[in-house]
């Protein structure tokens, strides 16, 4: 069994984000980055399959030099090898460009399973997975909360509205995107981190993958990002903690709940 896990590095959840001076993305200069939470569940799921039997887990990430750190973390958690795709032409590409690049990475590897998060915590597009499956010509299911592998196929639970689940079965090879909370993600152990230093980490450019800049020319352009326009919003109460508490208690009484 050979599994590819696609990881995106995104700003840390608690980072304070500011719009960059060109207005089309956030200022990345001083931010802390981490592996996209949705993707961590995909990685954990792959590592569980490996723990339960015989599997090679390959992790891939597209991005600047900083993403090496996330790949090392994934190797420390137990992935076997890593691929880092780094190319200036990928900086302004879109989800489809990313999917084309990942498809080129996967092309000659014959993966049985491709896993990644349902969406990324930065752009929230939820597109890369289904796009990659289409480019690879394999079946997919988006937003799964459970998978059970059997010979040549996998049965998954997709999360639908209101907490109901759609159970479907897919032939291997296939691609699955993971919803948050599907497992408990492990931490890299100290021993794991030491071992990770010896694991292979290949760096590839677009040219190495047989692609050119025009192959990843974006069809989607983010023209501008900005703080959402504020509506009327809430009436804000101020004061010391006990003053605020008293005002809230009066409100609760007024609503007849105390």
């Amino acid at each position: 069994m050979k599994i590819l896990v696609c990881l995106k590095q995104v700003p840390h959840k608690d980072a304070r984000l500011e719009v960059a001076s060109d207005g089309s993305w956030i200022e990345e200069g001083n931010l802390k980055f981490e592996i996209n939470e949705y993707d961590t569940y995909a990685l954990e799921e792959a590592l569980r399959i490996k723990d339960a039997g015989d599997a090679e887990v390959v992790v891939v990430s597209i991005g600047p030099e900083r993403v090496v750190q996330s790949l090392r973390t994934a190797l420390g958690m137990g992935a076997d090898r890593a691929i880092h795709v780094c190319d200036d032409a990928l900086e302004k590409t879109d989800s489809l460009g990313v999917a084309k690049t990942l498809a080129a990475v996967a092309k000659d590897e014959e993966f049985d399973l491709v896993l990644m998060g349902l969406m990324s915590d930065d752009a929230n597009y939820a597109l890369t997975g289904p796009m990659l499956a289409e480019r690879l010509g394999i079946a997919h299911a988006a937003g799964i909360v459970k998978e059970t592998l059997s010979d040549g196929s996998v049965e998954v639970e997709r999360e639908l509205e209101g907490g109901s689940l759609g159970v479907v079965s897919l032939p291997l090879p296939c691609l699955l995107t993971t919803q948050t909370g599907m497992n408990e993600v492990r931490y890299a152990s100290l021993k794991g981190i030491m071992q990770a230093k010896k694991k292979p980490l290949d760096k590839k450019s677009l040219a190495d993958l047989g692609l050119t800049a025009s192959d990843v020319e974006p069809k989607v352009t983010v023209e501008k990002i900005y703080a959402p326009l504020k509506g009327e919003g809430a009436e804000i109460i101020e004061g010391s903690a006990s003053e605020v508490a008293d005002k809230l208690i009066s409100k609760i009484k007024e609503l007849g709940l105390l």
Partner: protein
Amino acid sequence: MAKILIVGEVHNGELLEATLELVTLARNVGGELSSLVIGSGVAAVAEELSKKGGGKVLLADDAFLENYTVDAYTQVICKAIDAESPDLVLIPNTSSGWDVAGKLAAKLDTGIATDVIRIEEDGGDLVFIRRMFNAKFDARLRLAGSPRIATVQPGACEAFEGTEAGSVEALDVSGLESRTKFVELRQAPAGGHDLTKAEFVISGGRGLQKPENFEQLLKPLVEALGAQMGASRPVVDAGWLPHDYQVGTSGQIVSPKLYIAIGISGAIQHLVGMKNSNYIIAINKDADAPIFEVADLGVVADLFEIVPALTEAAVAAKS
């Protein structure tokens, strides 16, 4: 003039409200409108949509389409696109919407914007507005390629309420295939913690930082006020509270007299679950948190200071 194709959605034999919201959106953009209804035994739904403003409705009715599979739905949407040659395809951003939309865009090698809340015209071109970074920012997107595709956030527009004559045409859906096999639909196990009828819900979010704080900080407050405890998804994902505490699209939809959100940012999936509460109070240290947009009363402060003070005041008020 633009041609727009709406991909309708049917749940349990009924037209999903989000489909009629797309009708409103499409009419605001303007142009020639057609719609698609997919399923088995759904002729009446197609009829309904044609009378509710869906324009020319294409009916993809086949036993093979009884249950959603991404492969078959993609093939049907492609057939409808071939028949209508739209410039813009609108799809509800539901669990099937986000399964099918990316595949469709990759197949057609075209531009797509997901979870769109508005479409505006600017300089003869369309601009797609959506949230990013978990609603911290809005973004304006331009799309190349044809047709352009947008999935639209349910609830972003009012449902279209007009009526008209309308027409229904059958779409040839022979030769469908699916690698994915439908197995079954499973309802979430009903938990014992029912918030849907609660009068007073106090929910904690990721801002509470660790499970102990639900026990030691939030629970005393909830008990002092005689409320019920709820939570946002990350709290449940992390296993701090069971799933039947979760409020939101993938949890429970609540409408109490009073909802207090503590350390919750106000992501759309959470708001959908609580915005119909009669009165909303939010406590969050970030003045820009989107929860303050739906709250009636807000406290911009550290919850670790406010919650103990509030518990104390609640205990005092009762004695």
